């Protein structure tokens, strides 16, 4: 038996990286469900819509509808999976009670936030890459400004990862989580210009789309591919950055206060 380790080396960084590793391992262990499944679902959207609308619609000049659709679907799947990752991890841990394992260690709000958020971003980006690669089988999708693609992929997954943390901490039952997903996340992602350019919408819906922050994520992301967008990409970048920072602030405040975690 060892002596009591009062003086053992200890680092907060290690606690954070272990929590991140656990969150990554959690979805990687069921990758068929968390990565392959969403990729397949999104590719089915792509095949069906592209088959029905290819040749009839040209949204951006010189860009086929199938090619136009790919970035939107990549972003949509990234956003939904980033949200699903952090929200499902937290609500499952809360309901099964094993959240205690991450509440007992000396992990601060920043480490907790960083680990859950990064894992959500990784899952969002991995699913997005899967959809993009599958899309390339169907059509050529140029990437005119790769840096914009990367930045928007990370910001978008980060925003939805943050929303997932908020929903995961707030919800006390699975049906509250399902309501959050069905009545907030799904409408916002579907009404964000994934399948169309918002300029084709009637005025009311056009106005509503402009009020939807996810529209800017899709539009800015698509700009990275076609160097063409519905609104100024810098405006999209500004809105995405501000949304990300604001939501991060909300999450950190909730964690600092122990909202619904430390009663």
């Amino acid at each position, binding site marked *: 038996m060892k002596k009591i380790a009062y003086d*053992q080396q200890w680092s907060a960084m290690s606690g954070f990286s272990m929590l991140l590793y656990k969150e990554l391992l959690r979805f990687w262990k069921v990758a068929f469900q968390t990565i392959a499944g969403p990729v397949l679902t999104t590719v089915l959207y792509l095949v069906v819509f592209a088959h029905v609308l290819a040749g009839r619609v040209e949204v951006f000049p010189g860009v086929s509808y199938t090619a136009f659709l790919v970035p939107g679907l990549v972003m949509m799947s990234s956003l939904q999976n980033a949200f699903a990752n952090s929200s499902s991890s937290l609500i499952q841990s809360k309901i099964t009670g094993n959240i205690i394992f991450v509440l007992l260690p000396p992990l601060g709000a920043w480490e907790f936030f960083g680990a859950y958020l990064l894992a959500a971003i990784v899952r969002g980006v991995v699913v997005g890459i899967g959809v993009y690669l599958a899309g390339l089988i169907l059509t050529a999708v140029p990437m005119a400004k790769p840096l914009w693609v990367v930045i928007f992929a990370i910001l978008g997954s980060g925003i939805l990862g943050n929303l997932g943390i908020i929903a995961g901490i707030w919800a006390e039952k699975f049906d509250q989580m399902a309501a959050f997903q069905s009545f907030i996340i799904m409408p916002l992602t579907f009404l964000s210009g994934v399948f169309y350019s918002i300029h084709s919408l009637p005025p009311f819906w056009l106005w509503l789309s402009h009020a939807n922050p996810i529209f800017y994520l899709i539009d800015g992301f698509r700009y990275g591919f076609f160097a063409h967008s519905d609104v100024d990409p810098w405006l999209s970048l500004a809105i995405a950055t501000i949304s990300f920072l604001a939501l991060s602030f909300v999450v950190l405040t909730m964690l600092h206060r122990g909202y619904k975690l430390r009663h």
Partner: protein
Amino acid sequence: MAFAIQIANLEKKYPTTHALRGVSLSVEEGEFFGLLGPNGAGKTTLISILAGLTRPTGGSASVMGHDVVTDYRNARRNLGVVPQEIVFDPFFSVRETLRLQSGYFGYRKNDAWIDELLERLHLADKANANMRQLSGGMKRRVLVAQALVHRPPVIVLDEPTAGVDVELRQTLWQFIQELNRQGHTIVLTTHYLEEAETLCGRIAMLKSGQIVALDSTKNLLAGFSEKYLRLTLGSNRLPAQFNVQIIANTGNQYTLALQDFTEVEPVLAAIRESNVPILEMEVVQPDLEEVFVKIMAGQ
């Protein structure tokens, strides 16, 4: 004297209940301390505050001198908690669970200690089994291993033997006593009062969020309960001077209350003098359960 745990005027109010009402107590380093009380007395709330799972609404608490709110990192590093509920993460095996828990506390490459824990808690052959495959008793032992994985100087066990069979309970206590002998401070809550009586050097009893008794186990047993003398006599003629001491009488069987064991001999002498034969005699020591029941009843 160094204190492992110091609690001063601790208060916890929930919207509808007042779970802790000004609790103060100190546990010295190396003690085996019992925290007893009926359900709803505030034991788990107290432990949750020490562990940082619940925030106090007043007063203060510290672990190894570190305040659980303002210096929570050091307080939690020094504390291992075995929770009351059996919880587990179904995504992971036993070894993964322990490696993760060790890592959360900042300790990587801890496999030698993890192996020892698995061995001591009879889990070695289940190291690679998924948590879902374990029985309730095994899951509880994994919880014990998780609490010890960062080798905390202070270990809190909240009902650790509920649902654990007798043999494994003995194994667990041997291990915990060994840790205690090495200098670990142990705080135990249990409904098995005989366990508390055997293991704990000092005991606090909580009732409705307040401490109603706090003393060494020996003093509690000595001071809070009378001793009894049970006699079966050859006739039902107990000398009259002992009538005031009778607390039970059926025919020729008498139970007399004693303040002290030195009172036994005068009773026996008086009975012999009155020529009444003594057929059976039993001196009854109080146990902790009796002390507990009396204290909780407000006696």
